């Protein structure tokens, strides 16, 4: 077996040194009759070539985003990732290292975490950011718990523009912890009266912008009303590229900001691994979940970095910890931070501009198709179409024509009267030909 260095002779020598007759003697604590003698009923070891063939065949059964005109978003986005990113994250010293518990030999990881935290704080306009969560959805649930700790209240109000899967993740955790959730109904045109739901019993209001239907939301009035009632505003985004073009939540007085960072540096991966971004006002740092990297000095006075404020964390505080999170999204953080370093403010602003320009072109092209209404007043790189036929059927028909047209809103929340809505994303990867093909096929399908 190519991964196992011990030879039979080694094993015999080692057993002799230990002083046991065979390896099963080392398993003597396994209760009687529970020790397996024969290998389990699974295939035997395979060479590299054969494994690659098997998985290559499975991969080939899927339609890759890059192979077709592709407009699917709603929480995960197809972007171009520079080749440098994937090369660097596969460096042994990054790929095969552990959480930086021994800072003297993990300064590489710690320094990029510090850079990442600074980048996320700058992008969101917040004072501090942590070293990542699993993804945007779990980060949102953790933000709600954090708000409960800060306000000592246990009721969250969720906007109807929040991604329905995020809503479900928050509801699941809240139900388990016996916390209250008020989830407003899906709000396609961003007309909900969320201010009316805020009173002195509310811990936090969770608002996504751009929302799941693509609408840009004005967070400032919500922050003001929340603060007047002693509640926090949790701002959520699923498309981090939008921050290159729109007013960041920090400039609108959000208290906690959570986002999905997949768009920068990370592939679609059928939903994971992704990287949750988590930022807050600095007065709340001791209630934050997750790892934090901080600057300090070594014995010679040289600058260095360590994991810090770990008295919040599970390995120290156990059942009093701010979260149970341990392993997070280290390598996805690295991919994010490298891509963001390549972009810089100049590149990110340009990337966002191209995304928006492409989405506007697509919206204009589709608005001319019979049976289509673009519902959004404002949007970034994603918007929602109201169709004359059920969106789920339209998407299947479009797929049959070789175009992945978007996400039917009913797939995210069935039975909520969203059947005629299609959420469409358009990034820098889409060409004019892609958009023309989309409009042509949609015309045919709706005819």
């Amino acid at each position: 077996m190519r991964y196992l260095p011990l030879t039979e002779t080694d094993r015999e020598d080692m057993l002799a040194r230990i002083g046991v007759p065979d390896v099963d003697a080392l398993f003597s604590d396994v209760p009687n009759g529970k020790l397996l003698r024969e290998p389990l009923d699974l295939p035997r070891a395979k060479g590299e070539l054969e494994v690659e063939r098997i998985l290559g065949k499975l991969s080939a059964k899927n339609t890759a985003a890059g192979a077709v005109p592709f407009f699917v978003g709603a929480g995960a986005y197809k972007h171009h990732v520079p080749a440098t990113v994937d090369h660097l994250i596969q460096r042994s010293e990054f790929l095969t290292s552990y959480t930086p518990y021994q800072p003297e030999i993990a300064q590489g990881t710690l320094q990029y975490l510090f850079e990442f935290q600074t980048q996320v704080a700058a992008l969101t306009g917040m004072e501090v950011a942590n070293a990542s969560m699993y993804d945007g959805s779990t980060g949102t649930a953790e933000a709600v718990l954090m708000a409960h700790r800060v306000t000592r209240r246990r009721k969250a109000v969720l906007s109807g523009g929040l991604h329905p899967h995020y809503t479900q993740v928050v509801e699941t955790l809240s139900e388990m912890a016996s916390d209250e959730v008020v989830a407003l109904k899906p709000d396609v045109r961003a007309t909900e009266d969320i201010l009316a739901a805020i009173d002195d019993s509310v811990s936090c209001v969770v608002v996504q912008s751009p929302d799941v239907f693509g609408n840009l939301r004005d967070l400032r009035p919500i922050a003001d009303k929340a603060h007047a009632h002693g509640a926090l505003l949790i701002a959520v985004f699923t498309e981090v590229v939008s921050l290159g073009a729109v007013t960041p939540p920090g400039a609108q007085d959000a208290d906690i900001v959570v986002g999905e960072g997949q768009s920068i540096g990370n592939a679609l991966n059928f939903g994971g691994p992704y990287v949750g971004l988590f930022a807050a006002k600095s007065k709340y740092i001791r209630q934050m979940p997750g790892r934090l990297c901080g600057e300090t000095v070594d014995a010679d006075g040289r600058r260095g970095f360590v994991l810090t404020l770990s008295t919040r964390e599970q390995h120290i505080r156990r059942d009093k910890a701010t979260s149970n999170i341990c392993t997070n999204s280290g390598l996805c953080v690295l991919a994010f931070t490298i891509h963001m370093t390549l972009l810089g403010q100049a590149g990110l602003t340009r990337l966002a501009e191209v995304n928006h320009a492409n989405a506007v072109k697509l919206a204009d092209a589709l608005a001319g198709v019979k049976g289509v209404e673009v519902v959004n007043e404002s949007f970034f790189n994603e918007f929602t179409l109201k169709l004359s036929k059920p969106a789920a059927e339209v998407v299947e028909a479009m797929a049959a024509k070789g175009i992945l047209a978007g996400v039917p809103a009913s797939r995210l929340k069935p039975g909520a009267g969203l059947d005629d809505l299609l959420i469409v994303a358009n990034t820098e990867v889409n060409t004019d030909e892609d958009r023309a093909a989309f409009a042509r096929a949609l015309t045919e399908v709706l005819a």
Partner: protein
Amino acid sequence: MLNRQGRPSQAGEGASERHETFTGNRALQQIEPLIFEIGHHESTGVDIDKPAPFKNRLGKHARQGEIGLPGLSEPETMRHYVRLSQKNYGIDTGLFPLGSCTMKHNARLNEKVARLPGFSDVHPLQPVSTVPGALDVMLELAHYLMTLTGMPAVALSPKAGAHGEACGMMAIKAAIAAKGEGATRNVVLVPESAHGTNPATAALIGFSVKSVPARDDGTVAVEDVKALLGPDVAAIMLTNPNTCGIFEPQIVEIAAAMHEAGAYFYCDGANFNAIVGKARPGDLGVDAMHINLHKTFSTPHGGGGPGAGPVVLSERLAPYAPVPFIHVEGGKSRLVEHKADAPEGNDPFGRMTAFHGQMGMYVRALAYMLSHGSDGMKQASEDAVLNANYIRAGLADLMSLPFPDHPSMHEALFDDEWLKGTGVSTLDFAKAMIDEGYHPMTVYFPLVVHGAMLIEPTESESKASLDLFIATLRDLAIAAKGNDKSRFTAAPHHAPIRRLDETRAARQPVLKWEKPVPVKDAAE
């Protein structure tokens, strides 16, 4: 220049007189500033054409002002991150005996196949009809996990071990609620030796935690568990093999006692790598167990993630598994994404994450399983256990074993009894290992052992590598006992950086880079 905290803001400042070089560099060890100190706001490492003029639809939401992020050109970016990488220790660098963390070899085949476009470039919400191969991977992985654990169901979506713990405990909570005992069964038993994630998870989802004392031999005794059982107990969270590296000898009795009392047995599967192909949790009475794919099945740790924490479930808990999952009926598979679509008899407790979990990790883990096969996985467990016991045998005369009566499984645990009177602490000893070219073992965990040193070599080490490691630790142990104190207390001497002031980091947290301000302003 000083920053707001009044400490050097330029790498090398304040230390230059201690170095023999003008730059502060030491050949391959380069001092590398932060990107914020080398990049510029107008620089970029990407070329993107400006779009033709268009009418913007951002409404009143267009960003005003600077973001405040520097960019770097591609060559600068490459050099920056390569230099950072050179300050890191990885499995590919050398033996990484971090107990409980399972730092085994990361095969590059697994990285290669995970990047196949049919896996990496597919969207979680594209039509299910366009991703049959992705569902096949999930079903195949599920089949392997269920077979290896002897359990009838698995929830794949949790994103890491602790997330898996939460998933398993939520299934238990849902099952308890379904029996109408939600109001009364709210206590979870957790041994003192448990990972911190266990009590944190139990608390996270509204249970209160009761501690089970550890016996003198490092195991949990069924009598101690029984003494705590009552109508208020929901479950026990027990790690097996436990955090002392011992297979819990009374695990079957403990499981039976839990079930008899109407409670559940959650097994922390962080150490499953010791028993893959040797024992099945399903045969031991486990109701739920998460599997860290990044430990047992070698998807890389990546400096702290991403992980993946699928949870295998017993027949009693399977109906409560969260969405999404794949339901197979009559040879046809169907992706169930909502409670309302769940097949008859299922009552999903909710959703753990936005999408389907860590597909990228599923592919890597499956590649590991296919490569090893049932024979190779069994051999890997045996070699991991053999290696740990070989290290133990090679050091037992010099270092002290807190639990000599049980064989070690995949990790050997020592305490600091043998360091008494030397003036050298466990931490000092660990830091001296860095100078010798090794990553230290896990230290001060488990908490039940004073000055714990938990050594997990994994199956990836050759005998020659183990022999050298043992010889090095013997040299160090003899030096520690022989009054060579400064070798330890001031270590590491040869790492890229010396011991760091963690107290200072926590007292005056500096969590991001700030533009340096001149000294006179900083003083104001």
